[in-house]
């Protein structure tokens, strides 16, 4: 039977109505992207200056030199320093005020240095990795700075800067990841629908009007492409207009980003379709969907930078397709590095075509979908 665009359009309209009347559909299409960007934008959207790590400092040393160190810590821009009086019990203060990082300069710090020994006490919450890491850096810097002062060298200051001058907000880095999240959600586009329609014999019912499986698939692809773009426009729009995200909006980067989003959506929709075809019940499909979704979500750089992961997980992430979609979106949206994206886009196109052809072949050739 020949593909009929009119039937595709009619089913698309019907499916869209059904989707929008559902409780979960509009939530994931509109509300969830807004929630995601507002939540992360509020947490990370502010400038680097106000995202300093709070640091409590107690200087028990009577000498003036140690106050220079405190001033130097302030000037690093990494900490928001809160000085407490020498007579305060620092352990009690930390416990009462839920402090994640505190530095205590001992009373005999200057005197002991003359003997070649310096000792600092850094209190940190082990569950707060940033506080712990900064504490280590801080101790090294203080030791180096103090040593330089005594030997008459120039003072060494710790200066924090983003990797690219124009980026001042953490939210900039999250936007490609969030777009990756919407692409990955394509896994769920058909994974429930296929076993649900099969169980309820809706495919059969649709076939009575002549709607073929290819037409159903075409309508589904159009629908999920439109809905993914709507989610992404909402994400980028709020990130840009509300939180002032610094993203590249050249014609080339926008068009290529749209292409990457489309290829990603096709790939993950095809993965979901395959899983849906291989499962008999919605519950099993849900399990498979989550098994695919969550490892990709957490290991592909959606929420956490891959460089922050342990080495073996970084190797794992290299094998995950979503990693490349997000990296390419990074290149396009953040760095406007078009040249770097040519080869990855070709590979993504091959992957998308391969997955889609396999999934649609199985879907259309099965006697009863």
């Amino acid at each position, binding site marked *: 039977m020949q593909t009929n665009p009119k039937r595709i359009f*009619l089913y698309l309209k019907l499916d869209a109505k059904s989707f929008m009347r559902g409780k979960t559909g509009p939530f994931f299409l509109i509300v969830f992207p807004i929630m995601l960007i507002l939540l992360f934008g509020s947490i990370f959207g502010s400038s680097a200056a106000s995202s300093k790590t709070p640091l409590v400092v107690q200087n028990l040393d009577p000498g003036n030199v140690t106050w220079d160190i405190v001033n130097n810590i302030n000037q690093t821009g990494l900490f928001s320093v809160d000085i407490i009086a020498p007579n305060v019990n620092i352990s009690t203060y930390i416990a009462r005020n839920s402090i994640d990082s505190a530095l205590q300069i001992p009373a005999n710090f200057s005197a002991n240095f003359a003997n070649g020994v310096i000792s600092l006490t850094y209190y940190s919450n082990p569950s707060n990795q940033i506080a712990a890491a900064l504490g280590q850096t801080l101790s090294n810097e203080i030791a180096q700075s103090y040593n330089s002062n005594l030997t008459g060298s120039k003072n060494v200051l710790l200066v924090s800067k983003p990797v690219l001058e124009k980026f001042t907000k953490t939210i900039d880095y999250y936007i490609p990841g969030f777009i990756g999240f919407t692409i990955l959600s394509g896994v769920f586009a058909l994974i429930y629908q296929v076993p649900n329609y099969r169980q309820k014999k809706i495919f059969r019912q649709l076939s009575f009007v002549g709607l073929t499986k290819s037409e159903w698939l075409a309508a589904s692809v159009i629908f999920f492409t439109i809905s993914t773009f709507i989610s992404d426009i909402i994400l980028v729009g709020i990130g840009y207009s509300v939180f002032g995200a610094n993203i590249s909006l050249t014609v080339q980067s926008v068009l290529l980003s749209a292409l990457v989003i489309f290829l990603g959506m096709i790939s993950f929709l095809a993965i979901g379709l395959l899983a849906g075809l291989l499962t008999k019940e919605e519950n099993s499909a849900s399990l498979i969907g989550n098994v695919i979704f969550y490892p990709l979500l957490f290991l592909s750089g959606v929420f956490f930078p891959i460089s922050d992961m342990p080495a073996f997980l970084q190797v794992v992430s290299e094998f995950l397709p979503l990693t490349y979609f997000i990296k390419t979106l990074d290149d396009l949206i953040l760095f406007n590095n078009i040249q770097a994206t040519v080869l990855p886009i070709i590979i993504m196109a091959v992957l998308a075509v391969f997955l889609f052809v396999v999934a649609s072949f199985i879907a259309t050739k099965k*006697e009863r979908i």
Partner: protein
Amino acid sequence: MPETVIKISDLRKSYGNFEAVKGISFEIFRGEIFSILGHNGAGKTTTLEIIEGQRNRTSGNVEILGLDPETGRTEIIKHLGILPQDFNFLELINCGEAIDFYIKAMGAKDTVDGILNRVDLLDKKRSLIKDLSGGEKHKLGLGLALVNDPEILFLDEPTTGLDPVARRSVWKVIEKLRGSGKSIVLTTHYLEEAQRLADRVCIMDRGRITITGTPDEIIQKYGRGSVLRLSLDKPDMEAFLRLEIPYRRTGDYVEIDVPSMEQFFLLIDTFKAASITVNNLTLTRDTLEDIFIELMGGIADEP
């Protein structure tokens, strides 16, 4: 000679080693309501799905409107209306939208209101499918099956799972279609439904057709005729026994097989002549269900 619209010859369907349909043959004529009866698993739905072109057959011939459903489904489907077993559709679509989709996708000439009116569902035009009762859902399925004004209508267990009121409401809609020139193929395991609606019936058992005919023909051929049931006081009972009429005792009642109405009147005259007073007299006729139970050696499946 009525026009044949469906002709099945030696149809077989196997799933691996299991043979679900074992060489059945029958014909269905234009304008008749033809019912396929049988227990669950008798092969009714498989047969229907092969005729509709939804399943491929293992062997045999199937002709529907002169075409083979395996090769000519695209053409055949334009002339068929199908209400599948356990009808379902997109739950968050309302009745009007579902029918509108069918009308537009099939290029049909009917209107949404026209179809809803035919299945007594006009007041549910804006109701979502998920909010319909079982009977209303089946009537919507029937409405969708009628959108293209089909020559042949397939109704696969259209009232299974419905309460008696809803079942009768669906029957009313089917009865309205009688005489419209449409051939209706009805599968059911409700014998009462077949007896009330069908012009001809075939009974399937474990993949084979055991009986074909009109309900009256089947009842006459395989039934015991009518049964006269009555109760008698003690002296009348003694007088009745002296007449030596063959009978059965069922509790306090006496049952006598009456093969014809002549025999019935003869019996009444005999009682009068013997001055026997009968109480609680009823005359019942075998139903299709009685025959089915008798022949199948079991009880018809009820959901």
